[in-house]
């Protein structure tokens, strides 16, 4: 399996392709770990479970996505797309490589709560950027 250097990730937010204004993307899922230790398990009666070891199962999954945007105030660019979505839920898709989804280029589709935005961020001489982490509501659908 070839390693992948990210150069052409495709990101659409509310059906608008903002890939050329995004420098970083992180899509993550974390499951709650729910402890299921009970007296019978600790006693070593349940097969391979060692004595006095806790047992756990996966609980609810918490998904989130993080982007680093290059801010752009042009008409129908970054600011014009994201600012009206603040406080709403937007459909987002992410593909490792711009193009059709396939087994080697899976598409991840989800709905995120546009919970934060930094219209202006940066010091003198720096590029205006906006780093955001948006919680995902519902599942992440992977299409291959």
């Amino acid at each position, binding site marked *: 399996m070839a390693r992948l250097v990210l150069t052409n990730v495709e990101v*659409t937010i*509310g*059906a*608008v*392709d*903002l890939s*050329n204004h995004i420098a970083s993307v992180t899509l993550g899922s974390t499951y709650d770990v729910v402890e299921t230790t009970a007296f019978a398990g600790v006693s070593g009666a349940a097969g391979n479970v060692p004595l006095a070891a806790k047992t756990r199962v996966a609980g609810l999954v918490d998904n989130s996505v993080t982007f680093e945007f290059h801010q752009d105030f*042009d*008409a*129908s*660019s970054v600011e*014009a*797309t994201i600012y*009206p*979505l603040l406080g709403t839920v*937007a*459909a*987002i*898709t992410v593909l490792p490589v711009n193009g059709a989804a396939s087994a080697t280029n899976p598409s991840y*589709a989800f*709905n995120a709560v546009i919970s934060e935005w930094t219209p202006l961020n940066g010091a003198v001489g720096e590029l205006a950027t906006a780093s955001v982490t948006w919680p995902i509501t519902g599942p992440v659908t992977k299409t291959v």
Partner: protein
Amino acid sequence: MEYTVISNTKVCGKVKDEKLTKDDILSAGGNVEFLLASGHIAAANVARVTPAVKEAPVRQQEEVPVFNSVNNEQGEI
């Protein structure tokens, strides 16, 4: 209802001046009102109405009575 992409960013995989339908937008998870308001798309099949210009009726020039500028009486100059 058809829409035309008017922004420089791709919308539902379509580039500027390409057309898309409401179904294209909805299936891509987009919102028509939002895309219209944020200047990404514009309605495509709205016929541009040019109001017909009617010719103004030709008014016949009326004879203007000549007044004497001195005593404001109609008379000979």
